[in-house]
């Protein structure tokens, strides 16, 4: 009897553990993607939550609202532990803290500590750039904690002296220019020369041309000076976060009311390359959350450019990571607002390295690690080949993606472009249709039409001749009829 119970118990345990093994791979949300009409449809996950790591797991004590995470060229992750005023350097496998920076040595030998640091950047020559927000400065230090340079509030006419200097994010380009996102500055990102001199603002957002703004402007024409001065000013939203990828700086703006310039790709001159493209970042239609009675407009708080050029956007409102390829075609949507691993409470920062995504949550005080799934790997392989210009080589991976998910829009587009390149115009037309790519269809159709005319030129000429002859005969007959009729009257 007891044996039987034990056996039953064990078998039940086996089943339970089997179920657990299954659930370990399932996400705590329904994975979806957008189809060719931009309607949400169920899809396969490109990333799956592997684990979430807390400060205690790393042996660094509890983290307190981590606000930024960065993967440095030295193979370490740097987490900005804002609440504890420190930077934690973590090894590549995210198992233990390698080094904890809570104080730095100034060039004159004195010691200084951070106060609510918000952002970090590690340059290729291993310099740390720290946005030390409440100390109103940006620190440039080496990895041993010796400060090389300190950037403080610029005394320039361009910089409004009434405004505070609160750095939130910082990056540096190859030439050593430092770019700083400042709190409550809407004129763009502050740019500093390598020697710390203020050079001006870079890449300001545009004001969204809504009907309200146009009517305000018209009303303003008839207002008195006093009234005009008291009016609410139309200012664009400030930049929230940015990332650098080679020569381009990508910025994101988290304003939930603004839809222009939420994600920008800026060149060295500060011009937005995405400006005139009709792009949408985040969910197409605001998601209505029944439990909170709220429309969830996207609010992209962090952006990260992966090593393969993919653009990852972290949406704070829905806790979702939207991954786009270089041409801003949506690849994957990962994450949610949830308590489970793979869900966020207050998603703060995003970083990618290899086939993994790292998201810092400033309420859960953890870093969640997402790993690419098999499906994600195939898509990324195809996408990388495609972006590299190897359209033909990308054809087979794209077909593999379609075998796994027939609704995957990006794959249809990839196949269409590959077939177009190979000269299979009819195939390209078919897949362009499935991807809703009118311009690709147009190119394919042009080729198909040319082919058709070339092959059937004789038939076309014959048909034209027959039509012309028939028209001539009918015309003559009608004329005769008309003549006879006019004779009658």
């Amino acid at each position, binding site marked *: 009897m007891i044996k039987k119970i034990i056996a039953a118990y064990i078998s039940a345990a086996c089943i339970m553990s089997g179920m657990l093994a299954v659930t370990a791979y399932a996400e705590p949300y329904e994975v979806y993607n957008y189809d060719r*009409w931009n309607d949400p449809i169920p899809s396969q996950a490109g990333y799956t939550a592997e684990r979430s790591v807390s400060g205690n797991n790393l042996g660094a004590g509890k983290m307190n609202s981590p606000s930024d995470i960065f993967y440095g060229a030295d193979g370490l992750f740097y987490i900005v532990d804002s609440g504890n005023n420190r930077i934690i350097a973590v090894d590549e496998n995210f198992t233990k803290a390698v080094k904890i920076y809570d104080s730095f040595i100034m060039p004159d030998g004195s010691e200084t500590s951070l106060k609510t640091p918000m952002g970090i950047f590690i340059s290729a020559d291993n310099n740390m750039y720290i946005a030390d927000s409440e100390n109103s400065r940006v620190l440039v230090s080496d990895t041993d904690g010796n400060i090389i340079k300190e950037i403080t509030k610029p005394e320039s006419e361009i910089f409004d002296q009434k405004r505070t200097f609160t750095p939130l994010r910082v990056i540096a380009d190859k030439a050593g220019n430092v770019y700083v996102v400042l709190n409550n500055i809407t004129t763009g990102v502050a740019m500093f020369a390598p020697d710390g001199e203020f050079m001006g603002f870079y890449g300001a957002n545009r004001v969204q041309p809504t009907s309200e703004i146009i009517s305000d402007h018209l009303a303003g024409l008839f207002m008195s000076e006093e009234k005009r001065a008291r009016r609410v000013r139309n200012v664009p939203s400030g930049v929230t976060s940015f990332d650098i990828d080679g020569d381009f700086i990508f910025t994101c703006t988290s304003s939930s009311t603004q839809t222009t310039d939420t994600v920008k790709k800026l060149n060295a001159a500060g011009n937005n390359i995405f400006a005139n493209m009709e792009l949408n970042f985040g969910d197409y239609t605001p998601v209505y959350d029944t439990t909170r009675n709220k429309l969830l407009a996207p609010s992209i708080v962090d952006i990260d450019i992966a090593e393969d050029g993919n653009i990852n956007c972290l949406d704070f409102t829905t806790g979702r990571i939207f991954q786009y390829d270089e041409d801003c075609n949506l690849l994957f949507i990962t994450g949610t607002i949830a308590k489970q691993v793979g869900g966020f409470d207050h998603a703060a920062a995003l970083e990618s390295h290899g086939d993994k995504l790292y998201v810092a949550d400033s309420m859960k005080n953890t870093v969640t690690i997402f790993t690419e799934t098999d499906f994600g790997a195939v898509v990324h392989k195809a996408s990388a080949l495609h972006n590299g210009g190897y359209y033909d080589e990308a054809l087979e991976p794209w077909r593999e993606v379609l075998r796994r998910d027939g609704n995957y829009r990006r794959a249809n587009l990839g196949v269409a472009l590959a077939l177009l390149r190979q000269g299979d115009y009819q195939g390209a037309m078919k897949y362009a249709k499935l991807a809703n790519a009118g311009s690709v269809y147009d190119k394919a*159709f042009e080729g198909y*039409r040319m082919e058709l005319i070339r092959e059937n030129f004789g038939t076309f000429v014959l048909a034209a001749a027959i039509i012309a002859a028939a028209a001539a005969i009918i015309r003559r007959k009608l004329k005769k009829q008309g003549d006879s009729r006019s004779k009658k009257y």
Partner: protein
Amino acid sequence: MTELKPLEWLKHAITHPFEGFEDMRWKKAGSLKIAFFIVFLLFISQIAEERLYGFQFYISYDKIFNIVPFIMKSVVIFAAWTIGNRAVCTFLDGEGTLRNICIYSAYAFVPYIAQSFINTLLSHILIRDEFVFMEAIRITGVCWTIMLLFSAVKAVHQYSFKQTIFAAIFTVAAMLIMLFLLVLFMSLIQQIYLFISTVYMEISYRLRS
């Protein structure tokens, strides 16, 4: 002017924008049957433009098909134009009957219908670079129809040029008012329905408990 068959009258009216409708009025020609058929063709052309267009020019949302907007865009607009014109022109010394307004206006729509069918066909033959041809055909068709419509109103009510312009403007205003009232009426009916159904539900719950 010779005796013409109904279809020949149609051809005559379309190809003679200035005196075609005057001739028709003089001879009391025009068939209501043909007019209704033209309105039906207008309805079909609207659907064709939406659903059968070449993929390189227009991508339609073909997951669902709702016929109501197409009826609105063709039949209802045409009816509103006819009734609106009749309503306005009885005040403005117009001589046209409802029947004649309907026939003449419908005849005037033929070039528009023709251009939309031709363009639907061409959209499967041309590419985006050659869109200018389709645009030319469309503009021709629309302008022709406007001209014919103007001439139709002028002939059917025996107006001068200036009077016709006024009549056209007032007709458009009347159409807007009618459509507005229609929407208002619809929403009112819905409210009444909602009210009655709520009361019924309330009573039925109370009786049951």
